[in-house]
Each structure stands twice: as structure tokens, then as C-alpha cells.
């Protein structure tokens, strides 16, 4: 997976980039395609084999059935001929005199009822005509003694013999192709029983047509041979006689029934053989497997195109699916990358697969958590600082206490009872407000009270070296303020302004609300400060030496609590005095103050 940051390589175009060899998309596309194609090929091969085998078997079965059918018809036909022969023989047997007109009439009727029947003839064993139906003149030069029906009647007198088809040349009229049935029979001629050869000629046309109609595929055909291998019917008889065609007839003589593949000229031929029972003729079907099993070729083509289409479809599908899977991951990767570069604020919105959505959700959650933790860290840092400051401000300045107690001792020695009481009372109030139950925010009234007690103590201590005035708008009294912000400034004023003065000093504290701000001014008429000293004061270079909570501290606290818009402003002129302006937001007393979560 490519989630790790990219190596330093020149950026490739998108398409190529998306096809890096080890990318999910490539792996899925290839494996998916490969698997599907292999499966499809395997299935195709199996189906192909199965189909072709079945098709072949069916085709062969079909051919066998056709030949069987023809054979059946032939047998039926032969049987019919035999029956006719029997009938003719019976009629001759039943007739006392062969030359009787009744017999002639009976046989003529029989001849008319059977279209196939060409002629009936009775010959003496020497070949002389006794009787013929229809009564036709014999031709000259018939050579009937040499014809097969005559010879076989002599050779096998008891057996009804079927001749191969031949031209009937005995009687005048047409030359017809006939099959001759012949046997030696007995007949009565004017009381004497004589032997003769009964010849029944049956038209060959029916057999010829039957065989001609056999169509085994486009080029296949059927032929008939007799038991000696002579051709009875063959569609290409003349070609075979002329030696232009070879049909491997000899091979069929070995079979009486069966099928086999023969290759006399190289091309395979499917041969089916059946025997026409009573006469031992063989009907041979010749079919060309290449042609009859046309399914093979069609199937070939079909499977080829099927494969092509499937491959194309699978590739497209695989690319689509893999893109669907890898695209969100890629987007996720990009987002994560931007996070890695420090952008925590933009959340990731990746749609897509459930897992990816979950992942992005979890990631977002994680981001959120990181942001929260970072906020918390900032928060805690600030709080820590504030707590430090709080600790600072709550410190009791031992020096101030020592000075005050010192002055009380001095007063006591002098027996100034009232002043001692005032000092101690102010000190106690001063500390009470300083502590103020641990609160940081107090009302301006309290703050002013606090600074007033401080001023009382200092005034006694400095033997009325200065005077002071505290003025406040009634409205401002209830405003909330940080505690202990005035005391360091006043302390500063005393130390730097009043203490070294020869004249009586004066400190004026005034608070008012001005332009939505609480403005408190502490002004003295002391020595004033140089710009340098003012800067040092604010940067903490000079400590006012008294309470220990410096002016800098005051400024920082105000800024921390209320923001950078608020704080201290110094205006000072040497020999004239200093005015410190404190600016605070107007916050009315609503009791609660923010809890910083410190313990």
C-alpha cells in the first residue's frame, strides 16, 4: 500500500501513476482479470469438450437413425416384393393349366394393383418363354441365359433370389431398371407338372428414390451394395466405374452392422452400415464429421467471442472496482499527508467503502482529539502561569510588616496610643482585604479600602509627610477589579515620588467610568520619573521595594486577565509628579468569578 509518503520521484501523469505495479488498483485489476479469465477458459474448455462430444454423439446417432429408417423401409419393401412373388407363385400353382386365360387375367389384375410390378414371366429351364404378363413380344438378342436371375435360379433352385438392379431387356417397350426375383417353381401344363423359372421384375425406382433422398449433412450420402460388393445404388456410380472415385467399398464387406470412421482419401468419413435382412444387401451411410458437427465451428466462434467479451468486461469491471476501492484510500492518503504537514483544522470527508468511511471517521475523531489535547495543553500552560502569579500576589510582604510593626513600636515608646490603635486597625484590615478569602477579584470599593488602609499606615509611618485623597464615582464602586493593583502603584508613588521630597506630598486616587472603561488614576506631586525609570518599572528592572508585588506584576496581571487592551499607563514629569492610569473593563459585581481549575 502506498500510504507511506511518496519517494522523491518526478510526478507521473495521473493514469500511469494510478497503475503503479504495486498499487491496489493494479493488483486487484490483474488478479481479478487473471482469475476470471482462467476460470472462464477452464469452464469454456470443459463446456466445449462436453458440447462437442454430445453434439458429435447426437449427430452420429442421428445418422444411424436415418440409415436405420432407410433400412427399415427397404426391408419392408423387400418383404412386400417377396409377398407378391408368393402370391404369383400361388396363383400359378392353383391353376391347372398354365395357358388358361383366367390365370392371365388374375396376374394382369395383380400387375395393375401394384405399380412397382413391371412384369411377370415364366421361362423353361432352357430359357424359353412360357408365359409373360403383360403379353409383350420378346426382343431379340436378350442373352437371358447369361443374366444373373437366370443363373441363380439354376444355382439355387429352392431359394428366392434377388438380382442386383439391371436393365430389363427381355420385352419390347421401355428399358427399365428392375430388380429381378427368380426361383425354380413347378407349374401344370395341360395336366403335366413341369419345372420352370418364375421371374418377377420389380421397378428399381422406389429403392433408387429412397436412397437418393437420404441426406446426411450437406455432402453425405448413402449407397447400397449386395452381398458380393456389387453396387446396387450409388449416387456416383459412373464415377466409380470410370475409376474417378474410390469409395472403399471393400472395407464395408467386413461389417453387417456397425459404424466406424474411415479415411480412404485422408478426409475422415463416418460410415454406418446396416444389412437389409432377407436379401443381404448392405446400406452404407457416408457422412463427413467436419460438416455434420457444425456445432464445433459455431461453438469455437462463440467461445472465442465470449472470451473476448468476458475479458473486456472483466478488465473494465476490475478497473472500476479497484478504482472504487483505491480512490478513497488515495484521497485519505492525501488528507493524511496534509495533516502531516501541520494542518489539523480541516477534517477529512472521504466517502466510499464502509471501511474507508470508518477509517476516515476514526481519523477525524483522532484529529479532533489531537486538537483538544493541544488546546488543553495551551490552557494548562496559561493556567499554570496564572497560578504562579496568584501565588506571587498572595505573598505577604514581610518587609512591609516589619516596617509597620517597627513604627508601632516607636509610637508605643512615645505613648501615642491613638495612633497605635489606628495603625494596628488599618494593618489588620489591610491584611484582611489582602487575603479576602482567597478571591482574586474584589470590588473596587474593597480595593480602594485596601489602599486607604495602606495609606493610613504609611502616613503614620512617614509622620504625615504626605496627604492623600480618594475619590470615586458611586457607579464605579461596585465594579469588579483584580485585587492588589492599587497598593503597588501607591507604594511606588511613595517610594519614588514622595519619600525624597522636602515638601509635603499629596497622593490622589480617582476612579471613574469613562468610555465603557473603568479608569483609576493614581497621581502624586512628587519628584517624577524619567522615561528610563518608567520603562524599567514596567519591565520589572526596579522593584518598588515595599510589598514585593511590583508594578510590572500589576500590568501583567491585568493583561492576563482582561486582555492586551487593558493595563497601566504612566505619565510623569520630573519635579512635577507622576500619574499612573489603570484601565480595566467595566465588570459589575456578579459574585462568581471564573474558576481556573486550580487546586
Amino acid at each position: 500500500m502506498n500510504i507511506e509518503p511518496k519517494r522523491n520521484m518526478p510526478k507521473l501523469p495521473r493514469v500511469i501513476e494510478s497503475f503503479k505495479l504495486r498499487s491496489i488498483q493494479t493488483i486487484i485489476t490483474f488478479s481479478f482479470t487473471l482469475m476470471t479469465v482462467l476460470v472462464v477458459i477452464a469452464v469454456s474448455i470443459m463446456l466445449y469438450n462436453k458440447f462437442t462430444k454430445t453434439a458429435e454423439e447426437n449427430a452420429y446417432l442421428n445418422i444411424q437413425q436415418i440409415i436405420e429408417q432407410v433400412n427399415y423401409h427397404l426391408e419392408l419393401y423387400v418383404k412386400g416384393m417377396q409377398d407378391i412373388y408368393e402370391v404369383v407363385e400361388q396363383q400359378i400353382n392353383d391353376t391347372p393349366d398354365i395357358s388358361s386365360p383366367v390365370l392371365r387375367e388374375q396376374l394382369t389384375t395383380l400387375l395393375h394393383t401394384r405399380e412397382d410390378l413391371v412384369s411377370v414371366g415364366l421361362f423353361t429351364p432352357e430359357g424359353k418363354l412360357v408365359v409373360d404378363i403383360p403379353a409383350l413380344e420378346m426382343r431379340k438378342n436378350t442373352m437371358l441365359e447369361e443374366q444373373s436371375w437366370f443363373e441363380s435360379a439354376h444355382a439355387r433352385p429352392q431359394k428366392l433370389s434377388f438380382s442386383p438392379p439391371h436393365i430389363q431387356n427381355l420385352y419390347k417397350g421401355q428399358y427399365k431398371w428392375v430388380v429381378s426375383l427368380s426361383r425354380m417353381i413347378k407349374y401344370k401344363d395341360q395336366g403335366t407338372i413341369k419345372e420352370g423359372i418364375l421371374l418377377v421384375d420389380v421397378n428399381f425406382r422406389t429403392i433408387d428414390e429412397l436412397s437418393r433422398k437420404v441426406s446426411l449433412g450437406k455432402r453425405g450420402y448413402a449407397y447400397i451394395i449386395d452381398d458380393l460388393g456389387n453396387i446396387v445404388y450409388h449416387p456416383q456410380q459412373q464415377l466409380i466405374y470410370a475409376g474417378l472415385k474410390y469409395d472403399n467399398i471393400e472395407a464395408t464387406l467386413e461389417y453387417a452392422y456397425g459404424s466406424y470412421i474411415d479415411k480412404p482419401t485422408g478426409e475422415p468419413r463416418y460410415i454406418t452400415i446396416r444389412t437389409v435382412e432377407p436379401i443381404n444387401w448392405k446400406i452404407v451411410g457416408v457422412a463427413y464429421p467436419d460438416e455434420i458437427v457444425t456445432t464445433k465451428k459455431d461453438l469455437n466462434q462463440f467461445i472465442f467471442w465470449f472470451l473476448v467479451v468476458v475479458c473486456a468486461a472483466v478488465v473494465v469491471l476490475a478497473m472500476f472496482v479497484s478504482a472504487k476501492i483505491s480512490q478513497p484510500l488515495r484521497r485519505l492518503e492525501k488528507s493524511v499527508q496534509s495533516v502531516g504537514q501541520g494542518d489539523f483544522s480541516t477534517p477529512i470527508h472521504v466517502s466510499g467503502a464502509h471501511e474507508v468511511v470508518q477509517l476516515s471517521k476514526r481519523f477525524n475523531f483522532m484529529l479532533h482529539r489531537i486538537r483538544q489535547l493541544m488546546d488543553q495543553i495551551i490552557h494548562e500552560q496559561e493556567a499554570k502561569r496564572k497560578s504562579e502569579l496568584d501565588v506571587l500576589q498572595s505573598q505577604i510582604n514581610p518587609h512591609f510588616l516589619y516596617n509597620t510593626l517597627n513604627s508601632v513600636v516607636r509610637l508605643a515608646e512615645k505613648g501615642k496610643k491613638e495612633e497605635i490603635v489606628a495603625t494596628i486597625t488599618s494593618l489588620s484590615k489591610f491584611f484582611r482585604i489582602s487575603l479576602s478569602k482567597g478571591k482574586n477579584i474584589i470590588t473596587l470599593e474593597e480595593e480602594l479600602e485596601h489602599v486607604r488602609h495602606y495609606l493610613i499606615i504609611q502616613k503614620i509611618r512617614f509622620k504625615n509627610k504626605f496627604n492623600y485623597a480618594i475619590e470615586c464615582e458611586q457607579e464605579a464602586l461596585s465594579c469588579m477589579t483584580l485585587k492588589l493593583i492599587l497598593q503597588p502603584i501607591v507604594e511606588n508613588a511613595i517610594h519614588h515620588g514622595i519619600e525624597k521630597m522636602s515638601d509635603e506630598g499629596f497622593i490622589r486616587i480617582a476612579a471613574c467610568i469613562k468610555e465603557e472603561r473603568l479608569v483609576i488614576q493614581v497621581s502624586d506631586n512628587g519628584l517624577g520619573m524619567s522615561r528610563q525609570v518608567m520603562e524599567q518599572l514596567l519591565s520589572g528592572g526596579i522593584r518598588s521595594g515595599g510589598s514585593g508585588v511590583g508594578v510590572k506584576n500589576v500590568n501583567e496581571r491585568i493583561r492576563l486577565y482582561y486582555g492586551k487592551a487593558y493595563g497601566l499607563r504612566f505619565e510623569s514629569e520630573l519635579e512635577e509628579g507622576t500619574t499612573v492610569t489603570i484601565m480595566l473593563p467595566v465588570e459589575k459585581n456578579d459574585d462568581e468569578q471564573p474558576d481556573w481549575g486550580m487546586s
Partner: protein
Amino acid sequence: MTRTVAGLRVCLMIMLMIVLVSCGGAEPNLHVLEKPKNVDMIVKMDHGDFWKTVKMGAEVAAKEYNVNLTFKAPQNESDIDEQIRLVDESIRNNADAIILSASDYMKLAQVTDRAAYYKIPVISMDSEVASARVKMFVGTNNYEAGQKAAKRLIELTGPDSRIGVMNFVKGAKNADEREEGFMDYVARFPGVQVVDIEYCESDEQIARQLTRKMMSEHPDITGIVALNEVASIGTGEEIQKLGLGEKVKIITFDSPAKVMELLQEGIVQATVVQNPFNNGYLAVRYAVQVMEGIEVDERWDTKSTLIDLDNMLQPQNQKLLFPFVK
């Protein structure tokens, strides 16, 4: 990474091989046309057993080699213009091959050249045509057939005899060749004299008239040769009618039933038969070979056979003499 690529390549190659192997069809038989082609067979006459047998043979071959066969012929053998028109028609119909049995050796030459010009191969069958563009000739060697007839006739009449010739159409190549073969053979016997040569235009009635005329003009004729089917019937029957049977020996051509009857009656002593079935069959077969671009011989001789009473009942001759089962 490289190994993955190599693996993928191997897989792809195996797949391709499987696809190729499974799609490699059987090797086609060179002679059997993959797609049927149109072959026009134009013969001399649309009737007569001879041409019917030619057609039968052609049809057998057409079935075997996957050819659409169109069989055309004028009504009459002497209608040469009609035959030319039929050839033209085949050229216009864009036949893939033409098999032509030309009624006239010279007059069909031009149209044959035209067919060749349009890249239609022409096979000449039965009788030739005066065109060098013909791919091949399939038919009887007519010169030889004429010689066969002459040989038998002279055997019958003896070396000192007067002989008449009944030809059919002057100008038809096969008629001319038969006559030529006959005359050349006769020329070997100085005692044998051909006293009359007639042309019956393949018309039975004309043949009868001409026979009568011949016999009345040359009563000493002891042998006649009739050079085609129609001439044979006319001549044979007229001789029988004149009562000259057996006195005048007759050698005929072809084997219509009437001639066979005359043969059995002893009027006709022998007949020269061609093999029209084989003519038709082979003409189509060679047309297929030519269309497939396979070399063919210039000539194919379908043998002629001399049939007499002794051999007419042999099975192969029976089929030759009576090609149709009626």
C-alpha cells in the same frame, strides 16, 4: 517488481495460447468451398438424355463441392445466338465460373474472351471453343471416338466398302473432330471409300430424309456412321424402315433407348457412348479447382466406350447406357 511483471507476462501468454489452441478449427478441405459459389453451366440444348445426364453429374458435384449450379441451354442446338446471349447473361450476373459446351467453335469465341476479360474462368465441356482464355477442356476425346467408330465399321464392312457419314452440325468442334478422326482412320484403308457426308442439324426428320437420299444416291453403301444421338436415331430407324437392316452396318453415337432397341434388333451394330455424367461432374469439379486457384490440366479426357451386344449388359455399361432410373 520485475518478477511480478515476468509472472504476469507468463500468465498472459498461457492465456493467449489456450485461446488460440481452443479456437484453431479443423483444416479445411481444399476442394470443398467454404462459401458457396455460383457456377453457370451453359450447354447446347435443354432436352435430351445426354444433357440431362450431364446435368445430373454436375448436380452431384455441385452438392459435393458446395456450388450453386445454374443450368442453362437454348431450346435448339443450332440456336447459337441464344447460347451467346446466355453466356452474356452469366457474365452480367457475375457468375464465379462458367462451364460452356459451345454449339459453335468460332462464334462462341468472342463471348468467351469477354468472360475471361471479366475474370470469370471458363471451363469448356463436351465441345471446345476457339478461345485461348479457356482454362480447361473436359470431355470425350472426339477424334479418338471417331476413330473407334471407324475401326469397328471397317471391321464389319471389310476393307473394300463404301461408307456414308451422318454428321450433325458443321462447325461444332466435336462434330468436326469426330468426323476428322473417322476420316483419318478410314484413310488408312485404300479400299474404303467415304461416298457421302451429310449434316442433319441435330434434327431427326432431316436425318431420315438425308438417309433416304443417301441410300438412293448411293445404294452400294454397306456402312453408315451416325455421329450423334439424333443422327443415330434418324439414320437407324430409316434404315430399318427401308428394310436394309443388317445389310447396311451402322455405328452410332450415344445411347438413347431407341438406339439400344436398334442395337438389340441388330440394325445398329455398335454405338460409341460418351460419359456425360462424368463430363458434368468433372466440369464442375475442375471449375471449383480453378476458382480455388489450384493448377488444372489443359484437357481431361472422359473416355468413350464402344458398346455392342456383347458388353451392353455389363453392370458398368448398363449405368452408362441408361443413366436414369425410370
